[in-house]
């Protein structure tokens, strides 16, 4: 487990992409730290919800991840795609672990009455979104990727288009229908398969 790889996060990302879950375990704390930071902004009454600010934040995560500018990836687009995938995985895992805790799972022993009720406006469920995205990928993989890149990766339309090698117009169209599809899927509305 000892390695110099804590310094070499690009390598970790690459390793993770090749299926090395250990690498993810090492990257996750960095993403969590950023998440905590965003949480602190909320508590201070700030609104990092504005997408520009969040994008800056995510970019900061990326910068931290690559450390220096020497990205040995084939190209920037590829790198962004991997980062988006990473964000999706980490944030979804967080959502799942959170659900698990709320159910009282794991080692935590708390009776359900002690668990706080969900916030009045129910939080969007990232775990459910992740599952819905998997289903969407089975129908149309690119649409799922668009959501991954934009929602989890924080990329703008142009960047997304660059990564997927399609026109920005296509990204916009994909983004629209993907959102509707996913929301429907997550709402549990009955769908008919053809």
């Amino acid at each position, binding site marked *: 487990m000892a390695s110099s790889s804590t310094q070499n996060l690009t390598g970790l990302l690459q390793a993770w992409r090749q299926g090395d879950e250990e690498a993810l375990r090492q990257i996750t704390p960095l993403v969590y730290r950023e998440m905590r930071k965003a949480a602190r902004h909320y508590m201070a009454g700030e609104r990092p919800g504005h997408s520009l600010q969040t994008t800056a934040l995510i970019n900061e995560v990326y910068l931290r991840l690559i450390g220096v500018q020497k990205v040995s990836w084939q190209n920037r687009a590829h790198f962004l795609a991997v980062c988006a995938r990473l964000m999706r995985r980490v944030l979804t895992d967080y959502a799942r672990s959170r659900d698990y805790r709320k159910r009282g799972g794991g080692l935590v022993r708390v009776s359900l009455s002690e668990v706080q009720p969900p916030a009045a406006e129910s939080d969007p469920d990232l775990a459910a979104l992740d599952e819905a995205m998997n289903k969407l990928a089975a129908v149309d993989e690119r649409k799922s990727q668009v959501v991954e890149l934009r929602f989890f990766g924080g990329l703008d339309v142009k960047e997304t288009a660059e990564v997927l090698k399609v026109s920005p117009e296509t990204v916009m169209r994909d983004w629209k229908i993907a959102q509707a599809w996913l929301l429907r899927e997550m709402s549990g509305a009955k769908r*008919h398969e*053809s």
Partner: protein
Amino acid sequence: MNPERWRQVEELYHSALRIPPAQRADFLSTACKDDVELRKEVESLLTFSDSTATLFEQKGLDVAAKALVSDSGGNNQLDGPSPGSLVGRFRIVEKIGGGGMGIVYKAEDTKLQRVVALKFLPPEMAEDAHAIGRFRIEAHAASALNHPHICTIYDIDDATGQPFIAMEFLDGTTLEQRIGGKPMPADELFTLALQIASALETAHARGIVHRDIKPSNIFVTSSNQAKVLDFGLAKLQAGDSSDTPLRSESARRYSHLRDDHRLSFTGAVFGTAGYMSPEQVRGEKLDVRTDVFSFGLVLYEMATGRRAFRGSTRGELLDAILDQRPPSVRAANSKLPSDFGKIVTKAIEKDRNLRYQSCSELAADLRRLHRRIFPRSRVARWIEVGASILLMAALVFAVWIAKHKAGTPTQPEFQQLTMNSPENRITTGAISPDGKTLAYVDSTRVYLKDLHTGDARLIPLPNVPGVETLQWEVGPWFPDGTKFTVNTHPTSTTPPAALQGADAIWVVPQSGGMPTKLREKAVVFDISSDGSQVAFGQNMGKFGPLELWSTDADATSPHKLYDPDANSALCCLRWSHDRQRIIYVKTDESGDTFLSRDLKGGAPVVLLQPPETKKVRDYLWLPDGRFLYVVEEPSSFFGSRCNFWMMRVDQHSGQVTQSATQLTHVGDSCMNSMSVTADGKKVAFLRWNSHLASYIADLSADGMSILRQTRFPKSESSDGVGAWTPDGKGIIFVSNRTGTFGIYKQALDSDIAETLVPSASGLLHVSPDGKWLFFRGPIENSSPWLTPMPIMRVPVAGGTSERIFTAKAEAGISCSLLSLCVIAEPTQDLKRVVVSALDVFTGRGRELTRFEMDPVKNDWWFDLSPDGKHIASTASSDAPIRITSLQEQLTQDVHLKFQNPLLTFVWSPDSKGFFAIADTKEGRILLRTDLKGSVHPLWAYEGGSGETLAFPSPEGRRVAVQHWTTNGNVWTISNF
């Protein structure tokens, strides 16, 4: 949906979006014509097209961050609780300390009305998911340590988003304050030192290393009891091996906390780094010997009143730890015998290989010295305590008696190479030819460990679908030490697509890099001493591989060596040094026969044959002809008892030149996965054992959580709790402590178990009047799964046991608290289970009810309710719990809100629900359920396997649990 259809949907959707909503219906009915499905699909998507604002306006990170805010209560939770606030069931009283390892609060347990200490991770660490994970794992491990000189952990909780530990609130001072810069009186010094040593021994025996032993981490209560604090938590501070204390970012981040903490007391000496071991300073992987070093420094300070190492800067201090010798103990305290100084010196050797190798060794020397310098009467108490601890140590791995060459006694030497916990046990290992590196596999991954520095590094796994669900097994090294082999095997979770070729041999470069596949559908046996040939088995039959093959290291010229006859298998080839001869095992109906054979031809020579070889587990053929093998003893219970044997087999003739002698006498474990260094001097092997362990858990007042759990009885044997004594003050359990299983009774406040039945096991149930114990009688010479089962009774107070009657195979018993006992017996066709009354004297009575079972799975379960009026049963582990009223024969199904297979369950004493054991991916989980199916997890046991059972005490305040635990670590044997 096919792509063409989806494209249609997409087109229509976008077209519809471009026109005003009011006109969309018309547009769609025209465009879709009669295709109603298409229209519905587009319409339903359109209904979601305007509601996108809530989720997708944000980014994923925001959504998660908001969730985090709501998790942490939206107020000050991110930076620690304030006095008066409630955290779970604890009300914060005041902050009583804050150090590198966390912030400690005095708090009140509002449910149990007691004062506790709550320790929170510092906010900087609480952000780190990895740290939280470790915190939880380590705290959980530490919570299982029940020892009078280890601070008791009551609870571990992270429900509020910020993990904390609830522990014993101690009244007294730290050892640091107790020392107060002056040498301690000798008797006090020895009393506390032996207490601390005993705490460390216990922890180390369970694979828990403290890593931060220092006077401020040891508490001395007002009744003069030492209590070691923060067990296992220090791991966080040091990080794991990839996260070294001096180099890593996390350590730099946290180091100021340590420094601040220390400076706030004295303002002078720099940091608690003063108690680090040299290997800790160097950032190496740590084992128990780091605690030996730190404990040595604590002893030094107790004896002299001064720190062994000092420096005005951190750098100076660390240099001192690495290079300097502290002034002798004797010079500072002439009242202590010089042998005390020698003990300290040996404990603080810079080279950990020269140090005491364990706290047990150190403690033994301390005790000997103590006995010598104090009158016997004064230390009688200590001898007693010491003796019981020494006995434990002896059971661990001590009794090795060797007879070698015409009876000349020699002492084989053993060394433990890994210190993994049962949760992460090692499953196979192989030592490199130069003896410097160990390749091993834990539950999931392949590692290379540098045996000099202790650093372990992870081997990357190849990018093959399903590869992470394979089981990896380390095979032999190539003689030049540049690469080694691993074998993969499928597991129950291997996806079907990956099964093809799951049994494969891989070659792993020592220098790093991806393993490459050498051969599919094969198992590796040996590599010839010149490195030119890899021997493997291929074509699995019912006894194992059917054919012996060999190939060169590039897999370019595989050729078959031998085929067996139709009804046997060939296995486990070992080359002679010159590759002219082989030893292998032929397995058929009669068992294993060990043969040696000249590859150029000639008849095979029989070395060992059944029944001698009945339980040979592994073997090696060393270049000098020594043939070392492992035999499992007849009394062994799931690998509880194996020994090394040795004979000589001439490398050229293949004949036995010296007959077999037993090399070791091991009482408690088995060995396999053997490998040897190139010089033939050191053999590495996996030492493992499986045993039943029992725990007593105290339940909270509402019965919905466990306050504390204690291993009971504390022993190294297989002890499986099966019932409570009628007064609820003791347990009845099975144990193989004498070598065979018997039934015992022991009060919770006693160290002594009373024998009820010397030789018997299982199915323990106390009759409602509390006078009799039912148990399963002996079944001879056949499988308990098929044989009718004698049902016995014995007085709970002790006495003669008698057979009552013989029940059908696989029967189960249950007794209510008040009136009734029942016996459940599956029918011959395994489709139904018949439940009949059971009487202590007359045996089976009238049928009360019957329920269905799954004949294929055959894992039904049942229990009689405490009031004797209902039977709860499951047809299989996937079925709901069916409750049948015996009076009206009405049934009601309880569907648990828990997905995993339900293995066993028992009614809670108030009849309002069950204690249930379910199977999880990680192991086993104990749940408390109600009759509506809601579940509260009480306790999760990672790494658990086999049968786990829970038994609530009659008054419902405790629950006794038995489960299986398996250890595995790599050791070496030399000088044999």
